[in-house]
Each structure stands twice: as structure tokens, then as C-alpha cells.
């Protein structure tokens, strides 16, 4: 059968983005689409492999010294920006300074705030970052205030990517406007703003905002040419349309929406094209630990025991999720297979009575309007009514939701947390350390001195086994203190066109650089 679009010149891979990236500057990359694009256009000293491990990028090797406070990176002499110039140690330093500079408006300064002297530099009290030194063109040393176990993971995040600051012109500083005015040296892509030059595996060749981005290989990348000639990221907001594109053969990789999962998995021909990956994500109902009845741990435990999460996972998540009894996703050191709160409404009622709420109380649960949220929160509403808690569901779009929830104005909320890097710390610290209350990620306003100190200790602990033990201990305390109604860890599924070889569904979205992916279209392009 004929095809709508000649699907696919061999060498071009078509991938969908659900949202359009706003800007392709790693200092400002805050969402998945922006981060993913930056991971292709820029190098860090290190980066994530598809399996989530830390691997060499612009640095060819590194050593960790002084009990974990000093990192020495040896630059890969072959690394080149897309204008052919070498990536030097001083480019690393100026890139870090660019993010941390007092006039920089990067929302990602926190990624680098473990570096010694970062806050002094950021607040204008120092002219340079004390902890960053470049003794020669191919050596970068970074010193930390104190040991920080996941520091390499932080360096693999977009905010630590290397840009050619020298090409940004005289005005080295980065204000939101400045970045768009500067000349980049890179050939301006169609419709694209000026943006910093990178040394990643790919170079942006076209950007039609809201439509698509096209990337071609960086001819100077030391890894050699990838098998693909082009990567085309098409912005397709509707799930239905993405499916139609995939089924028409005009999209090569499709993240399968939950509602379609059974249909795809039920098709034997397709099943072998599907890859699944437990997400670095935990889904929960946050309880405001400071507010009204929810300040009482007995009430929070009662809520956990009143909801049949097993059933919610089985029916609503189609069984494609792991029930959670803690916040550390399976597969990460520190995840413990402890038994979750039992579904026991009678015990829950007893707990409520003990806490002084024999007749229950009124509770607002806030959510964003999403199919997943609607299904889950309505089920929870039904379960809680059985123990006398009258839930009113409040739906708000993201901006209003985030404002109210982060400022602690709501009783409870349905939310999830995506890890930026595969380490339990990235869940436990933002979600439960008291210093992150509100916007830092701890939106349930959980506060526990022991948990705080154990988290800090885990951050300093370099020994893997000892640290995993600490993570598990923290996770257990959190579980017992029940700051949330613990729900589940979702699993994601993608289907990959049979024409495509070498694609691995990455653990971290920054982990796929498409360097080993190839494509050989069949005579017939449709995937059906």
C-alpha cells in the first residue's frame, strides 16, 4: 500500500516530541524536550549512557581525590565544537561560570552549587569560582565544599554542559535576553534563535518552532559519523496523532500511551518491537504534613491503609507499574522490597478514631487534568469516603497547580517525581529534606531531623554498600512517617519501527545519543 509520506529516506530517523522546546540553551533546559535536545547538541565532561551509567564525554578520564572533594578531569583532545575548534579546559570553566554568574538567570544554578565557591561567585562576592581550576588546556579540577556522592551525575545534567562562551561575544554574561541577541558563530538555523555553540554528537540544522527540529551529525565529533544522516524531532502534542504517524510509517519510535498499551501488546507481530523500561519516576498523593488533620502521622497512615493501591495498580495502571512502599524506584540501590501498607479500612478507621477524627473530615485533593490523574484520584476519593473522609477533587492546570502546591496552600495533591539521574539521592533529598520544602521538591512539607541528617550523611558517603544501606534506612523512615499516600512506580513502553536497529530505550532521557542507531527502510514503509 502506498504511503502518505515517502516514509523514510534511509538515514533519517523520525522521533516525536510531545512539547516544543522553548530554547536550546543548556543553562535554561528545564523540561524533557529541552534536556533531550541539549544532550544531543552539547557535551558534558561526562554523560549518561542509555543504561544510566556515567561515561566519558568531553573528558576522557577522571580521578576522584581528597576523600571525594576533588575531581580531576583529563579532557579528550579530540573533542571539537561544531565550528571545528578544540574543546579546552577553559571552555569548561567559562561554561560553569556562565550558569553561576550573578547576572545569569539560569534556573539550574542548584546543579552546580556543590562546587566550592559557587555561592560566593554567584552572589558577586568573588570574581571566579574558587573550586574550579584549569592548570592547562586539557585539565580541569573541580573541588567541592564537602564530598557529594552523585556529583558526576550532576555534571551529566544539561546545566553543566560545555558551550563555547568565547563565541557569545563580548558580553559573556548571560541574561535571558542576552543569549538570544548574541552571535553564535554557528550557522543560524532556519527560524532558530542564536544559541551557544556546542560540541555534541549532533548539530541543529533546522528548527521550525512548533513544527520540527532537524539535527545532522557534528562533523568534528571524535566518535566518527553515526549511521544516521539526520534526526528529525517532530512536535506532535496529541497522543492519537503520534500513533497515527507511527502506524503510517512516518514516525520511527513511539512512546505508547497507556490507553493503547493492551492493543499494542496484544499484537504478536508488534510485541517483539516493544521495549519497556521502569521509569525513574514515583507517583504519589502528597499530603501536606503541616496542615490540619494531616499533621498527625496516624491520620496519614490511616489514609495509606484506606486505599487499595494493589487494585489501583492492577486495574488502572493495567498492572504495568510497581506498587511503591517508599520513594526509591526499583533498580536503584536503596530500593527495598518491604511490604506496603495493607489495605485495611477497619484499621484505618481505628487510627482515625485514635487521632480524634471518628467522623472523618473534609479533604481537598488537587490534581492536574490528566487521564492518569483522573483515574487514580477518583478511585482514591471512593476509597477514602469509606473511612469517612470526604474528598473534594480540585483540578487546575499546571501553572496554578504548581503555585498552590509549592506554597503549601493545599491539603493533598496527586503528583509524580521524575528523577534527573539514577540515584536514590535524587528522590530522597529533594522530596524529603526539610531544606527543600516547597519549590525544592518537598511539597508535602515533610520535616524530620533524623531523615535530614541521614540524607546529608548519604550524600557524603562514597562507599556504595554503606550508602545503599543509608538510602534504605531513610526510605524506611519516610515510609513509616507516611508523608504521602504511596502509589506506584510506572513502567514506560516504546515501540520501535522494524526498520530501526540499535535503539535502546534509555533509563535517563539524557542517555540516548542515537550514535549506534541505524535504519534501513523496507520497500513498504508502513508499520502494520
Amino acid at each position, binding site marked *: 500500500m502506498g504511503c502518505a509520506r515517502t516514509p523514510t529516506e534511509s538515514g533519517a530517523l523520525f522521533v516525536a516530541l510531545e512539547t516544543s522546546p522553548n530554547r536550546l540553551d543548556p543553562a535554561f533546559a528545564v523540561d524533557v524536550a529541552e534536556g533531550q535536545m541539549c544532550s544531543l547538541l552539547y557535551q558534558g565532561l561526562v554523560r549518561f549512557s542509555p543504561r544510566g551509567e556515567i561515561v566519558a564525554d568531553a573528558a576522557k578520564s577522571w580521578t576522584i581525590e581528597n576523600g571525594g572533594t576533588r575531581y580531576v578531569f583529563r579532557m579528550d583532545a579530540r573533542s571539537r565544537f561544531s565550528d571545528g575548534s578544540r574543546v579546552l579546559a577553559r571552555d569548561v570553566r567559562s561554561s560553569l561560570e556562565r550558569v553561576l554568574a550573578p547576572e545569569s538567570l539560569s534556573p539550574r544554578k542548584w546543579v552546580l552549587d556543590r562546587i566550592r565557591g559557587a555561592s560566593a561567585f554567584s552572589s558577586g562576592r568573588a570574581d571566579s569560582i574558587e573550586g574550579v581550576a584549569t592548570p592547562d588546556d586539557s585539565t580541569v579540577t573541580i573541588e567541592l565544599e564537602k564530598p557529594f556522592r552523585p556529583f558526576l551525575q550532576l555534571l551529566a545534567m544539561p546545566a553543566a554542559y560545555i558551550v563555547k562562551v568565547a563565541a557569545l561575544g563580548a558580553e559573556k554574561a548571560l*541574561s535571558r535576553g542576552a543569549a538570544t541577541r548574541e552571535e553564535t558563530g554557528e550557522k543560524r538555523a532556519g527560524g532558530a*534563535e542564536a544559541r551557544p555553540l556546542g560540541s555534541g554528537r549532533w548539530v541543529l540544522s533546522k528548527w521550525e518552532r512548533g513544527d520540527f527540529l532537524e539535527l545532522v551529525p557534528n562533523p568534528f565529533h571524535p566518535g566518527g559519523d553515526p549511521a544516521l544522516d539526520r534526526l528529525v524531532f517532530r512536535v506532535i502534542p496529541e497522543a492519537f496523532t503520534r500513533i497515527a504517524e507511527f502506524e503510517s510509517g512516518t514516525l520511527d519510535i513511539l512512546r505508547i500511551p497507556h490507553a493503547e498499551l493492551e492493543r499494542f501488546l496484544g499484537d504478536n507481530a508488534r510485541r517483539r518491537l516493544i521495549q519497556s523500561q521502569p521509569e525513574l519516576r514515583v507517583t504519589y498523593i502528597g499530603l501536606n504534613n503541616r496542615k490540619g488533620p494531616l499533621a498527625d502521622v496516624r491520620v496519614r497512615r490511616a489514609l495509606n491503609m484506606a486505599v487499595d493501591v494493589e487494585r489501583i495498580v492492577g486495574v488502572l495502571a493495567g498492572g504495568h507499574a510497581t506498587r511503591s512502599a517508599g520513594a526509591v524506584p526499583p533498580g536503584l540501590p536503596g530500593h527495598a522490597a518491604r511490604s506496603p501498607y495493607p489495605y485495611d479500612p477497619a484499621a484505618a478507621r481505628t487510627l482515625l478514631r485514635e487521632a480524634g477524627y471518628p467522623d472523618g473530615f473534609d479533604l481537598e485533593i488537587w490534581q492536574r487534568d490528566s487521564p492518569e490523574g483522573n483515574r487514580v484520584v477518583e478511585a482514591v476519593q471512593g476509597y477514602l469516603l469509606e473511612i469517612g473522609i470526604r474528598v473534594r477533587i480540585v483540578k487546575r*492546570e499546571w501553572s496554578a497547580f504548581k503555585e498552590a502546591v509549592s506554597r503549601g496552600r493545599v491539603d493533598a495533591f496527586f503528583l509524580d517525581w521524575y528523577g534527573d539521574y539514577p540515584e536514590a539521592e535524587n528522590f530522597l533529598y529533594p522530596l524529603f529534606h526539610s531544606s527543600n520544602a516547597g519549590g525544592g521538591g518537598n511539597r508535602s512539607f515533610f520535616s524530620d531531623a533524623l531523615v535530614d541528617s541521614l540524607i546529608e550523611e548519604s550524600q557524603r558517603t562514597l562507599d556504595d554498600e554503606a550508602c545503599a544501606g543509608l538510602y534504605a534506612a531513610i526510605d524506611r523512615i519516610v515510609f513509616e512517617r507516611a508523608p504521602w499516600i504511596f502509589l506506584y512506580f510506572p513502567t514506560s513502553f516504546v515501540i520501535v519501527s522494524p526498520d530501526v536497529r540499535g535503539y535502546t530505550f534509555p533509563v535517563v532521557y539524557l542517555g540516548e545519543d542515537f550514535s549506534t542507531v541505524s535504519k534501513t527502510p523496507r520497500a513498504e514503509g508502513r508499520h502494520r
Partner: protein
Amino acid sequence: MIAYIVRRLLLFVPILLGVATVTFFLVYVLPGDPVLSMVGERYDEATIQDLRREMRLDDPLYVQYAHFIGGLARLDFGKSYVTGEPVAPTLLKRLPYTLRLAVFAMLISVVVGIGAGVLAAWRWRTAADYLTMGTTVLGISMPVFWLGALLIFVFSMKLGILPPSGYGGGSLRYAVLPAVTLAQASTAYVARMTRSSMLDVVGEHYIQTARAKGVSELRVVFGHALRNALLPVITVVGADFGSFLTGAVLTESIFAWPGIGRFTLDAILKRDVPTIQGAVFFMAVVFMVINLLVDLAYAWADPRIRLQRGAAEAGG
């Protein structure tokens, strides 16, 4: 005529000022903080404060308003909070996409809608009339997202003859499904409007006179009846064209069409205040210009209107 146009254009100024003012305050009443949309899921208060200062969100409201109106006078809406790019050029970059879709949709709506309406009126109370009017009921009541999905399912997934979505670099084939989807309700409405208006006109004396003079039926229908029946149709078409240019959010989302509707919706969801203000201002201009064109088209369709206006203008 010229004086009339000039006066109408001058009226644009206070109207636009009103629109801008209402938009300005409405955006500030909306719940949700624009800064929070820019910082991702994890942020610290210091960053929030820096951004608020840079975006002048800490200024008193009247200062912000004065700043906004001052920029407006220079047609400068400032920079998008989200992309850091100036709003006006970004908006204008999206215009060709939207214009292309709107023009195709309008052509479908006018040609098919008026054609079907004339057919139904001409073959009044026949099978053709009933079939056409039955179809228009379907057209008016069918939700856009449903029709869009149906068209994609049939023409892209089953038959494989048209691409499911995207702009396709301007290829005509990519515009077919979105244009049909966008035009659907308007086409049906225009058809019904044309039919009833034609039926009114057909009873008029001058039609009978024309027939009596032996003018051919085709000329009676198209030369006499249709032209006079068009007046209300022009109004509908004008209003629809305005909404095609400004609010095709659903169609644009289903078909991943990078037009102004989606652009505006994204801005609203992210509380990108300068972009929202620019987009609403643009929409107001579109509607005012279209209304003006509709009024001028009236004068073309019905010379009596021109005379009355002329008299009014002469009278001052």
C-alpha cells in the same frame, strides 16, 4: 468611502487600548505564577526572586501597566518569558502557517457551503435539499477533535493517501485534512445560511421580474438571487475567517500544525504574559480588520448600503 475607512481605522485606537487594558488585568487575575513555569520542578527561592526582578514582576501594578502601554505604543510587547525572544516577530513568524490553513478552510467553506446552500434552495423540498441539510446538521454538531481523528484514521491510517499531521514544509497534501476539519462547521453553517437567505430572496418581486423578462434560470439564481442573498452569508464568513485566524487550537493540536492558536494556548498554559498580551492584541486587530472588510463587502453586495453610508458621511 475613504473618509469612512479612515474614521473606522481611527476607532481602532481606543478599542485596542481597551482590549490591551482588559487583557493586562485579566492575565494578572489568573491563578498561577509565570516565574514558576520557567524554572522546572526543582528550584530555589533566590532564583525565583532574581527572575521576578528581571521580569519587573515586583513593580507596582500601575508601573507595570504604564510600561506595558508604553511598549504597546511602539508595538513592542517585550520578550517572551519562556523563550527570551521578542514577542511580535515570533508571533508574525507563526502567521503564515495560520494564514495558509485559514485560507484553505475559508475556500472550502465558501465554495462548498455556498454551493450546497444554492443547490438546496434551488432544489427546495427535493431529495437534494433534504440530503444537503441533513449533512449540514451533522457538520454543525460534529466535534472538531472527533472529525479530525476520523479523517486521520480513514485517510492516513486506513487508505494511506494523506499524511496524518504536520506542516510538511508547505506541501498542499498536508493542509487537506486540517483544512477540511477546520472548515467543517463553518461550511455547514454557510450552507444553511445561504439556503434560507436564498429562499427569502426568491420570493422577492425583482426575481419574479427577472424571470418574467425571460432571464435564464442560471442567471436568476447566480446573478440576481445569490448576490442579494449573500449579505448575511458574508457576515458569517467574515466572523469564521476571524476565528480561523485566531482560534484554531483544536485543529492545530490534532494535526500538529504550528499555528497561532497552539502558540497562544502554550503561552496561556505557561503564563507567558507578554506573549499572551501580544497574541490577544493581534486577535483584536484581526477581528477589527475583518469586520471592516465585511462592512465594505456589504457595500459591494448591496449598493443601497453604500448610498446610506454616503448619506451618513455627507451628514457628518
